[in-house]
């Protein structure tokens, strides 16, 4: 267009002719054709760009790293009554979990090390980066409710296949362990509850036996109203022993001697406690053996090892409890022994007493209201023992059930997950197709070459034809003199 304020000059206003109008569509089309034709005039540099670009594309394609992908399908069969969730829900829940299980740092470290993956990253940036890189190339996706695809990508088809197979096997192993671990944790939880119930039952029985010891008249009632009351009475006797120990000096003075019949009962208690301690020690030994076995096969971080370690802890605490009880009972028995010897040596009536039926000490006389209170308290303690025993029984049944489930999980774990199709050996690359890169490069180069030619035309400020004069806002030329092809080219004055 002419410069501002210049459009009205005669050069642009045309002599006797109407001023230039807006080009018609036909003129615009002709102009486009002209520009296209001029663009073709730059075919030589455009062709050079094409040649160079295609060569670069081919070079790039040849340097392109090929990525192979191996896939393995794994079936997951749901156990009977294991879950009511839909297939989609299962896939949504399990796929991320399985991937998480597979991409743990410890597992990937061992895989990177075993298959010598990403040596440059390992050497340059460390194992952590290599593990992250490996994690990027693992994919777990669900196909249907019972089948999962596991895949791994690598620059080598063989490596991809081997790693995929290893991951699938690890996943199955891990899944089995997880299932057993869940059953084991449940069994442990129930066992702890059973221990609490047992402790509560012991406390209740101890309270009842103490009460019976303090009120011998209630012993008969205990026999009549509580099954297994013989043990309870032994405990009552033990409680009486404890009481007599605590009041040893006082009882000698009063002449009351309820301890006379105790040595046999104390031995029975000691035998029971010893048996309990031995049982706990055996459990500890078993748990230790389990832990050793697991450590031989797995790392410290493995869930089985953690579970075995937890088992051992529980068994050790049970052993400490049993040992403590036994030690306390022994100490109490030793404390009662001197008074027994003293009574043997000093009082012939004691010998007589042994040969005669044992008679409880005379209860203190109670008022009617006091007797009612004693009976009420007796009933309350008796009810506590019954409740504790009932709870203990329930817990014991739960524990047995949990142990059964644990056994079943151990036995059936291998049936829940299996490899359907082993990892395949990829025959062609999954990514980085060289022909694709070459074609893409060629296409880009073509665009560049065309763009170059068009840009040359659009940025060309020179006047070529009357259309250019029109673009400048000038009048049509007075004449258009064609080039003389035979004349020499060059500067003309």
């Amino acid at each position, binding site marked *: 267009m002419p410069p501002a304020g210049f459009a009205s000059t005669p050069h642009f206003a045309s002599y006797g002719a109407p001023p230039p109008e807006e080009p018609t569509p036909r003129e615009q089309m002709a102009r486009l054709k002209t520009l296209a034709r001029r663009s073709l005039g730059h075919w030589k540099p455009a062709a050079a760009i094409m040649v160079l670009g295609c060569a670069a594309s081919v070079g790039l394609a040849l340097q392109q790293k090929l990525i192979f992908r191996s896939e393995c399908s794994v079936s997951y069969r749901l156990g009977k009554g294991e879950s009511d969730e839909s297939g989609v829900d299962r896939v949504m829940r399990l796929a991320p979990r399985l991937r998480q299980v597979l991409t743990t740092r410890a597992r990937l470290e061992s895989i990177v090390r075993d298959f010598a993956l990403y040596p440059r990253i390992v050497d340059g940036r460390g194992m952590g980066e290599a593990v992250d890189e490996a994690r990027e190339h693992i994919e777990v996706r669900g196909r249907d409710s019972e089948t999962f695809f596991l895949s791994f990508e690598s620059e080598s088809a063989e490596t991809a296949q081997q790693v995929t197979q290893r991951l699938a096997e690890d996943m199955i192993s891990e899944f089995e362990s997880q299932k057993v671990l869940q059953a084991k944790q449940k069994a442990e939880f129930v066992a702890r509850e059973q221990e609490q119930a047992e402790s509560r039952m012991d406390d209740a029985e101890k309270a009842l036996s103490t009460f019976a010891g303090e009120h011998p008249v209630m012993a008969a009632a205990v026999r009549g109203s509580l099954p297994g009351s013989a043990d309870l009475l032994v405990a009552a006797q033990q409680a009486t022993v404890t009481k007599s120990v605590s009041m040893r000096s006082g009882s000698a003075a009063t002449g009351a001697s309820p301890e006379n019949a105790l040595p046999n009962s104390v031995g029975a208690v000691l035998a029971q406690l010893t048996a309990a301690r031995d049982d706990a020690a055996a459990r500890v030994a078993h748990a230790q053996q389990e832990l050793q076995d697991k450590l031989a096969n797995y790392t410290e971080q493995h869930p089985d090892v953690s579970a075995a370690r937890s088992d051992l802890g529980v068994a050790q605490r049970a052993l400490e409890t049993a040992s403590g009880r036994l030690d306390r009972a022994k100490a109490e028995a030793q404390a009662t022994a001197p008074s027994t010897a003293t009574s043997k040596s000093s009082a012939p009536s004691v010998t007589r007493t042994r040969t005669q039926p044992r008679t409880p000490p005379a209860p203190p006389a109670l008022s009617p209201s006091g007797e009612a209170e004693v009976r009420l308290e007796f009933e309350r303690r008796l009810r506590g023992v019954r409740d504790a025993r009932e709870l203990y029984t329930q817990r014991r049944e739960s524990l047995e059930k949990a142990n059964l489930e644990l056994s079943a999980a151990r036995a059936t774990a291998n049936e829940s997950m299996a490899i359907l199709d082993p990892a395949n050996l990829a025959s062609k690359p999954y990514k980085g197709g060289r022909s694709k890169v070459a074609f893409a490069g060629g296409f880009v180069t073509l665009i560049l070459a065309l763009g170059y030619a068009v840009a040359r035309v659009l940025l060309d400020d020179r006047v070529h034809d009357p259309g250019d004069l029109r673009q400048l806002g000038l009048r049509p030329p007075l004449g258009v*003199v*064609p080039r003389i092809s035979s004349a020499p080219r060059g500067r003309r004055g």
Partner: protein
Amino acid sequence: MDDDSTTVIVHARSVAMEAQADSPVRTIRVDARPPSPDLLAMLPGGPQETASALRLVRQRLELRQPLGQKLIGIVSARPGEGKSVFAAQLALALSEAQRAKVLLVEANFHAPSLANLLGVTVPTHQGFSVQLARRMQNRNDPWVELALGPSLHALLEEPGIGYAQALYSTHFLQALFFLAPAYDYVVIDGHAVIGSGDANVLAQGVDALLVVARSGTTRGADLLATMQQLGEHKPADVILWDVPASEHRA
């Protein structure tokens, strides 16, 4: 000159002088041997397409003749864009078949090229600028024109001998005004416009200006600047010259 020819320069001849006693104008008949005859287009055997285009230009100028456009200055935006070749082509086209009497004037005293282009040997000290210099020295020698044909005369420059400042003297325009009445057209080979004021000096003395734009060489911005520098005092038209066949046919 060969009068039988439809063109002006065909055969070499000996230099002759048509001397008229006391005449203010002397005509010297010269032979011309253009080194590139095809370049002039209007010679026999020349490119017909170019000749046709030049005839079309001639026809358009003839239509404007009633407007008084007789003195025609040929300029261009920058040097080397073909104004001298076009001036020679136009002069030959205008005088073709003696349609009109034409005087071709070399006004580019800094870089004269018409004599070489036409293959004419200018007689010693008869170059246009030298004649102007004599006028500036108050020597009223007759004007010496070179007769290239029966209807085509020329005022050319002697290569290597010239007085460029003569352009700026009043005698330059006086000479044009004095000689013009004897001709139908006076074609003046001018100067590059950008970077010089010589074209504007020429513009003062001519009736119309033709700005030669060489296809593929002249820049649009230069062309606009040329039009702006020439101003609106004289009509100026663009001649698109040396257009490639592809562009021309399109």
